[in-house]
Structures are given as C-alpha cells and as structure tokens.
C-alpha cells in the first residue's frame, strides 16, 4: 500500500526582515512559507539566526557557569563583542543596556549611546539593543542610541501596546528595526502590530517578541503562542507574519535549576552541564515552534544549536565568521 503524504501548502508567507544596515553586514531572517523546520514541504530562504548577549556593565547576577566563558570581558562591551563574534561565532549580538536601569547603575542615555557606538566600531554584525525595561528611561536611552547610531539598522527592544509611539517615531526617523513585545498572547501581539501599522511603521521592519518563558517557567505558553502565530501567518494574516525573536538566555538562566550547585541537589547532576542543557532545551523547543532569532548567553549553547540547525540548512552552514 502506498503512503500518500501530501505536502501541506499555505496561503501566507512570513515577512523577511533585514537586520543591520550602514556599516553592518546585513542579515535577513524570515520568508518561509511553511511550519517551522518543515523543509520537506516548504521553502525557507533564510535560516534562524543565533545571537549572543553582551552587557554594558558587569552582570553580577549571572551565575558562574555562564560568566566563565566571558571571563575578562564582562562589562566591557566592545571586547565582549569581539569575543562573541570572532571566537564564539555569533551571527549577531544583543546589547543589554542593563546598566541604565535606576537600580543597576543608572547610566545615562549618553553613556549608553557611547557603549553601543563602541560595539559598532568593534564588530560588523547586526545589533539588537535592549533597554532597561518599559518606561520613561528606556525611551530616553533608546532614543539617544537610535539617534547617535542612525542608519545602522539596529533592532530596538522593545515596544509594547501601552508604550509604542515613541519607539515607532524613533525607528522611523533613524532607520532602525523595532521589536514588538507582547505578554504571551496572540491577540495582543497582533494588536501591537496593528497599532504600529497605524503609526506608519512598516511591518517588514518589525520582529515579534512573544515573551519567552524559560523551560519549567512558562515555556509551553510561549511554545503554543508561537505555533498559533505561525499558523495565523501561514493562513494569510498580514499582521502576524513577522519573524519571531526569543530571549532564551535571559529566561533559561533565571531558572533555579540552571543555578543550584550539584552538591545541594545531588539528583540534579552537574551544574555546568545542567545550565547549558537548560538553555539548549529551551532554545531547541522554541526553534521547533518557529523562533527565527535566538538570543543566547552561553557560547556552548550557541555552538550546539548551530550544529542542529546545520542539519536543516546545510548550504548555509556556519556563522558570521569562517569556521
């Protein structure tokens, strides 16, 4: 008896979004016309991108396992950037401006912009810039960064339904990409994109951040929301077909399971491997659900995910640097 497994065809296609411009080597993501990784029945012009997270100040709360590969460059963004790209093979970087938060250094918008410019001078990969969290300070910081780094096609993280007008204007004025963030809800993600469209933002310059729940801390909610977003996009919904970015590293390494030493919980095994496994499992599950930009913290996680992706995207193996 023959096996008639018809390939599934869809009405809609994902948008293609290009990150990086000006002095960056641009990278494009998205454009697929099928369910994630379903290369056997659909076309995917671009493979998912892997980003490493660097910080403007020393991230003292990062657990030892994830600080260790960054020894010597923590809180030194330009040097961390070089290591991330040249040694660890990141496709792009996420610059986390945590130091601008009032409780963590309260660095000024000028200082933040200077840090970002230093990173831009150090490497030529695209950059996602993450502010200190929703609020007035974030708008000020990102506005200054956007202006000083105009034309570089930065991805500004993030706009929300409650606060999108400032970032929309900034992204438009200075030629950047916007990341729209919503709280693990398909409707709210769509609403944000509609509001952005109403504010004249081109959705071909928007990424969706559905809010990542780490393994054990809401992963399945993000996973299912992402599957539903992909289905809506493939069904033709032009307000939901932006590529998705997941901040995996931040969420996975928050878990106590990534941090507790083996001595305290013998059944939990080796802490170092456990932490990486926590990040890798979160990342892989979300790649399967449709993540197209993954932001990781441990370079070994990045190497492992890259190797997995090479299986689906052999012609485009390798990262930004030759390997």
């Amino acid at each position, binding site marked *: 008896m023959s096996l008639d497994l018809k390939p599934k065809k869809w009405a809609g296609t994902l948008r293609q979004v290009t990150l990086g411009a000006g002095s960056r080597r641009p990278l494009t993501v998205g454009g697929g016309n099928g369910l994630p990784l379903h290369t056997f029945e659909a076309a995917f012009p671009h493979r998912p991108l892997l980003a490493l997270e660097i910080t403007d100040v020393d991230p003292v709360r990062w657990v030892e396992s994830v600080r260790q590969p960054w020894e010597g460059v923590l809180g030194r963004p330009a040097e961390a950037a070089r290591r991330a790209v040249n040694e660890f093979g990141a496709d792009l970087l996420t610059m986390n401006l945590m130091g601008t938060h009032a409780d963590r250094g309260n660095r000024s918008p000028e200082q933040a912009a200077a840090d970002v410019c230093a990173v831009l001078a150090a490497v030529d990969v695209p950059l996602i810039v993450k502010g200190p969290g929703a609020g007035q300070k974030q708008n000020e910081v990102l506005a200054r960064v956007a202006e000083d780094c105009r034309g570089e096609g930065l991805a500004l993280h993030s706009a929300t339904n409650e606060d999108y007008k400032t970032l929309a204007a900034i992204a438009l004025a200075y030629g950047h990409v916007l990341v729209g963030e919503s709280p693990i809800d398909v409707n709210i993600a769509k609403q944000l994109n509609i*509001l952005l469209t109403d504010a004249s933002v081109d959705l071909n310059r928007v990424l969706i951040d559905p809010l990542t729940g780490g393994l054990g801390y809401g992963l399945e909610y993000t996973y299912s929301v992402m599957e539903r977003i992909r289905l809506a996009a493939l069904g033709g919904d032009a307000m939901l077909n932006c590529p998705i970015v997941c901040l995996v590293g931040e969420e996975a390494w928050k878990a106590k399971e990534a941090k507790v030493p083996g001595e305290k919980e013998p059944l939990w095994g080796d802490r170092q491997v456990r932490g990486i496994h926590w990040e890798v499992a979160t990342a892989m599950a979300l790649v399967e659900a449709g993540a197209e930009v993954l932001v990781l913290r441990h370079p070994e996680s990045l190497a492992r995910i890259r190797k997995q992706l090479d299986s689906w995207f052999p012609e485009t193996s390798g990262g930004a640097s030759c390997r």
Partner: protein
Amino acid sequence: MPAHRVQFSPSGRATLAAEGASILRAAESASEPMRAECGGRGACGRCLVRILEGQVPEYRVLRRESGLPEVLACLTPVHGPLTVQPLVEAQLPKLISGDRYIGVQPLSAWAPWPLTPAPLVDRVGPEDLGVALDIGTTTLRLLLIRLSDGTVVGEAGAYNPQIARGADVISRIVAAEKGALGEMASAVRRSAVSMIAEAAEAATLDPSHIRGYVVAGNVTMIHLLLGEDPSGIRRVPSEPRSLAFSPVDAAHLGWPGHARAPVYTVPGAGGWVGGDILAGAVRAGFSRASEAALYVDLGTNGEIVFGNADFALACACSAGPAFEGGGIRCGMRADRGAVDGAAIDDASGALELSVIGGGRIRGLCGSGLIALADALFRAGWIDRGGRLAARVPAERRVAGTWGAAIALSADRRVALWERDLASLIRTKAAVFAGIRSLVDSLGPGGPSIDRAYVSGNFGRYLNLPAAVGIGLLPDIPQGRYGYIGNGSLEGAALSLLSREFFAEIAAYLQHITYVDLSELPGYMDQFVGASFLPHTSPHLLRMG
C-alpha cells in the same frame, strides 16, 4: 432604642433612623437613591453628603464647604436629627418617567404571535388592574394595566434601593449572607409600593383594584424580593433556592390589591439566566421561531441568548455597568444634560455633541459613550486601544491625576477619560466575546444570526452603527436588528394578560442550555481579541 429623624434635601424624603445606624442605611430606608458602589465599605468614595442641619462625629468629617461638614454616608453614624444633602458624587439622577408606555396595549403591540386575552389573574370588574413589574439590578419599572381591555394606564420607575448594598448582584448576595436579607427585601417591596402609589395617583386609580402581579427579574432579585436566601446562587455550580417559586399573596409582601391577589414570578432557567431574560426572549419570539435569533441584554449582567424553537443557549458575560453610566467618571443615566450622541465633522474636524434636553452638559450616558467612542475612533482621535492620539485638538485635551481625557463640556468638568474608554472596551469586549463564544460553541457550520434583539436601559435609542462600529455588536445586516426597550417588563405584561404566554415561558425554559463562559476554553481568547477597536481580527465581527 432611640431613633432620629433624618431628612434628605432637596427630595424631602425622610425616615426614622436607629441610633448609630449609618446615614447610608437611612437613605436606603427612606428610598433616597444614593450611589454606593462598594456596598458601604468606605472604599469607593461615592456616598458623599453634606450635613445641612444636625451634628456628626468630627472624626468622620472629610472637609467643610461654607462651614458645612461633608462626610461619607456609609461611615457616618446618626446620633441625632439630621438634614442631609447628597452631593454630586452620590447622586443618581432622576429616571426618565413620563408616559412612554401609557396607552399601549401589550397584546397588540408586543405579542410575538396572536394572543387571545386571558389574564393570568382573576378579573371581576371593569376597574380591575394588574401590575407588571421588572426588578432590575439597578432600576425598577412598573406598569399598571387595566385588565378589561389590556391597556397600560399607569407607569412608574425608581432606582432599586438595594444599590446601597452594592452595584452588582454579587455584592448583594454577600450582603444577604451577612444578615441584610430582611432589610433588602423590605426595601425593594417598599419601593414597589411607592411606585404603585405614584402610578395610581397620576391616573386617578385605586390600588385596591389590583387583582394580581407578574414580576420579572434575575434570579438574585427574585430571591431578595421573596426574602429567600440567595447564597447558593454564587456557588459553583450555582444552586438557587428555586428557579420557579410558587405565587405568593400580595399581602405577604405588603402590596395592595384584592384579598389574596397573587404575585407570580417569572421562572428562571439557571442561577444566571433569570425570568427577566426568559420573558424577553419569549417576547422576542424565540419559542416559535425557526430561524435562530440573538438576544442581548446590555445591562449589568450582560445576558445573551441564542436560539430558536428547538434549542437555546444562554450565558451571562458580566458586562458591568458602563452602559448605564456606572464606572464611568462622568457617567450618568439618560436624563437631561446627558450627552447621548456625537459626531466629528470631516471637514472642520470639530466634535459635535448632542445633549438630552439640549442644555448644559452634565454627563455622559450609555448611548453617548458608544457614539463618542465610535466617532473618536473613526476620526483618529483615539487609537484602537482607546488611548488618546496626537490628533486630539489641544483645546479639548485634559490632563489630570487619572491620566488624559477629552473635554466634553465648555468648563472642561465633564470629560471622557482614557480609563473610561478602557472600561468601555472591556465591557464591550465581554459582550461581544460572549456572543461569539456562545454562537461558536455549537461548532462550525452552526446556525447564523438571522435576527438580533438588543435590550437595555442605556438611552433614548441605540446607535446601532456606532455599536457595531466599536465592535460591541456583530456586524450583520442592519435590518436584522430589533430594539426592545425593556424585554423583561414587556414579557411580564404579556404574561399578565395571557396565561398562554406565561405557560410558554415555563415550557421554553426547558430548552435553555446554560453555558458558563469561564469554562469555555476559547472565551478568554475571544475576550482579549475583542478588547480592541473594533476587534483584533475584524472578520470575526461578521457573523452572517
């Protein structure tokens, strides 16, 4: 126990209040309408009154105006005679009374199929009267009907005095659980007596000629009227004492009429689907229709029925009081001074408001809120999330501790706040999500909405295009919509005049399938989707 006379100004209503009782309780017993959204816990700040005469404890005085103390009625005890003036915050404006219904013959005007006159109550002489009463959570409405020819000869309206125990049904159940059942029962019964007296006097009729009553209300209201413990209603699953109480003697409730004039109550179909909705649905013809119809009650409880002669689904979406002026900063009921319509001129960009009575703007009623939201959204003054956009002219902008607003009155004291829009969006999302979820619960390929009836007390009329425009009601051909002012009252009147109609209600309730929206997996999703102007996915507004 000493008692003190408390008089309210300017209404003149008065009562004897027990020593130490709160001014709010005194208002309740005097049938003086007073806002008390938190049910008297001192939390909502609404029941503000000024003491014109008499003494109150100093520690309760919030401030003084022209030397007169202002206090919260719910927290202030009566220790001596008082004259009390409710301030603007506490006021519920007068209901529209007047002669909307007088002269109407329900059997001709409202019967969904030909009904032969056959009153539910015994009729002896040409002067005999019957009463149809609708007990709403917020308002009461009464019709005096001449049984010989089935004509409405008198009418009255009042606020439900139980408002003093809280704006919503749950608060009242909680109050009953804490021992206020007897007082709430007495209060609403007394209100009915006042309304009968008012209606009879206006028509120079004698209440002793009343032969019987038909009362429609939600299940909680009926329990409270009859003095039955309502606490089971809010349990999960809902367990009312009964859904179909036997008729009681009017005298038992202190109501006038012939000896042993019966008081019938329209039966309910479930804890959250009461006789009021059932009466309205049968009045709209559901029990005999082959086509599927939708019935939406835009009151506090937001009941929705979808069905026909073969099946009926019902749910309650807990809409909230936004359409009746509740929860809206400058909200008011549809009365003189209420904005009830709005348009923004394409050319000039000017905002034009229509006001009931044409004079000074005093507030915003339900119709006005819907019309305004639709106009503002269409003109781009607000974004789809209900937030003010750059396009709002500077002279209309108001900023305050509660955020941003659009001024409506010249003195800028009446304004539409962003949080009012948020409330409206939440309310309309609950209703539309309820409608959509209810209809979808039958699965794909189910019946479409062939007719839709909207019932509610939000204004002189319903601005249907605006209601559809903001995504409150489904987008179906306008001709399919019918507006019923008060389906519950009309159904009660038809029951009074036709035993066949009353029996039909009892039979139809067997068909009602209650759907608990909180148990429908898709409801929350629909609710979030509908929390946008007009909807996150506008194609979902089109429902046949």
